[in-house]
Structures are given as structure tokens and as C-alpha cells.
């Protein structure tokens, strides 16, 4: 009989379709797993609502649970329950190792442009002489930064 723990372990093997170094569990977007007499209910929330990876992730979760011999009902939650603060410490290091600076922690108050213009650490050389080039990037979840030391543009996961 499949347990919630089995499901969590299986889901931890699903890579984010656009940032495959990190799993959807590391991203913190799987909110809960409930198992009742062989049927699995997964609560899941997208990072950004326009993310085209949403359907891919849902199908991957259903397929993983099917491999365990159970059927999954994936409930997409569209509420305020996820922020980039939910990315695990492990997940943040995986992002960095892939050249993607992890998001800065959410401020208690309103997120201001000046907070994003600070010198975050370059994932390639570690320098903090970096600047914000563009709030927006190649996917909804990324901004573009530039390192003045190693002269390398890099991406940063947006804080939301």
C-alpha cells in the first residue's frame, strides 16, 4: 500500500521542466500529499501563473504516482500559499550551482526596486559587484543580472 512518504519521495524525483537541476519538491510548490485507500491527493501551486510548465508538472506528478500503483488527483491551488521563501536550502544551492542566483528573502513589507538593485552574489565567481540588468528574463520567474568582476550576465530567481 502506497504511503504519503512514498509519494513525497517519488515527487522529489521530478525536475522542474525549465530548471531541471531543482525538483518540484525543492521548489516548495507541492503543498500537501494525502493518501486514502489507494488514492492520492496532491495539492500543488504554480510558481508563476503564466508558467507554461504548469501542465507538464501536473502530468509528471500523475505519471509518478501511477508508477507507484496508485491514482493521483492533482489539485491546483491558486492562492497566497507559496513564495520563493518556500524553496528549500538544498534547492537554493542547486540553483546557485546551475548559475542561477537564488531569490533574496522576501522583505516583511513591500518589495522595492532598490532591494533588488543591491549587489547579490554572482553564482559564477562569488563577487557581489553585480547589478540588476532587467527585472524580467527568459522565463517569468527570472531576472537578469550582470557581474562587473567576471563580466558575466547571470539570471536570478525572482523574489515573490
Amino acid at each position, binding site marked *: 500500500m502506497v504511503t504519503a512518504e512514498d509519494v513525497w519521495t517519488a515527487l522529489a524525483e521530478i525536475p522542474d521542466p525549465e530548471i531541471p537541476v531543482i525538483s518540484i519538491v525543492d521548489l516548495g510548490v507541492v503543498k500537501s500529499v494525502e493518501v486514502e485507500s489507494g488514492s492520492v491527493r496532491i495539492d500543488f501551486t504554480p510558481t*508563476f*501563473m503564466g508558467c507554461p510548465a504548469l501542465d507538464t508538472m501536473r502530468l509528471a506528478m500523475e505519471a509518478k504516482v501511477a508508477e507507484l500503483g496508485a491514482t493521483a488527483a492533482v489539485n491546483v491551488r491558486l492562492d497566497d500559499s507559496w513564495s520563493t521563501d518556500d524553496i528549500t536550502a538544498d534547492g537554493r544551492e542547486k540553483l546557485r550551482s546551475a548559475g542561477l542566483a537564488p531569490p533574496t528573502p522576501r522583505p516583511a513589507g513591500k518589495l522595492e526596486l532598490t532591494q533588488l538593485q543591491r549587489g547579490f552574489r554572482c553564482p559564477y565567481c562569488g563577487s557581489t559587484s553585480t547589478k540588476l540588468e532587467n527585472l524580467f528574463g527568459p522565463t517569468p520567474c527570472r531576472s537578469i543580472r550582470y557581474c562587473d568582476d567576471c563580466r558575466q550576465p547571470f539570471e536570478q530567481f525572482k523574489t515573490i
Partner: protein
Amino acid sequence: MSDRTDLLLAVADDELILGWRNSEWTGIAPFLEEDVAFSSIAQNEIGHARALYELAARELGTTADELAFDRRPEEYRSAPLVELRRLEWARTIARHWLYETADEIRLAALKTSDDSEIAGLAAKMDREEAYHRMHAEMWVDRLLASDEGRARLSEAVDELWPYALGVLDNALRPDLHARAQQRLGRTLPHVEPVSRGVHGSELDELLEAMTSVRRSAPAGAQW
């Protein structure tokens, strides 16, 4: 149609139509960063529209795609502000900033709704919209920094102001008026808003283009 679906469709239509208008800059924005920015903002807005249409569709017994693509032009509830086609930079920035400011006011109200689905969705949208606002404010700063920029922004805001008021219900308009005046450091007139519900030929042309792929396939095609 209930007040709830009417509200959901008004916000969804605003986000879809503005998303389309923003995407018209893809490939032709003044420089690459803005190409990326407007394309990304468009993607977010259309993502919000999808989530809102899905809530409305559940109540109406239809689908998000049918609501987005299959209605007659007169059935769209979008505000005329988002329908205008203005491929000119000062007007694009003015519309972007006016819409995002109005949208912030609207989302703040929706976040306190008794309807937990609407309140939750508004809060999630607002996290993303914060980036649109930072981007719009950055551009307002840039334009206000020079005489020419200030003049061109001012002229664009004058043209769009009655449309901007039309995005919001009566009760929320004074807040937009106060914020816009404070930000620009000038007085804006009390004018008759160009309210949602009346459409011009620009929406017809937009819908013609936006639905062309869907109409080209037989009914029931899976995308």
C-alpha cells in the same frame, strides 16, 4: 450572469487584452531589455486571465478557452484603456503605469473579499504584479527626469486619463486620482470616465487577429 462572474470576466478580459497589447512589442521594442520585459509581462497577464477565466468557467459551465476566444466582441467586459492600440513608447508607458496603478488599487480591494477563492487568487496575482509596478515606476522616473520625457509622458497621460478612470468602479476612482496626481506632481482633471462595456473598432481588429488560429481549426480541436 452573477455579479461574481461579471467581476471575474471584467478582470480577466482586462488582463487578456492588455497581455495581447503588451505582446505586440515582442521583437520591436526600442531595445532588447524592453522586448523581454513586455513579453514577460504579457505572459504573466495572460496567465492571470487564464486563472480568472477558469473560475468563471466553472460557474458558467464552459471552459477558459471558450471564454477567452469564442465570445462575440460585444460580450467582452474589458476596459477601453486596455483595448487602445498605441505602439508609441510614451503612450505605452503611460498606459502601463496607469493600468498597473489602477490594478493595484483593484487587487487590494479584491484581496479583502469575503470570497476566499477570489481573495486568494488576487493575492497570488499581486505578488507578480509587484514586478510590473516596479517596471512601470522605473520608466516614469526615467521619463520625468528630462524635459522632453516629462512633456511626452504628460501628453500621453492627458490622452489616457479618462480611460484610466474607466478601469475602476466609482468607489475606487478617487484613490487612483490622488495617487496619479501625487506621482506626477500635477493636477489631473475630473472628467467623465471612458467606462467598460463600450468597444471600438480596435477591439474587433484585436479579436480578429487573436482568434484566427483557433478559428482556423475544426471545432473541438485539442491544443
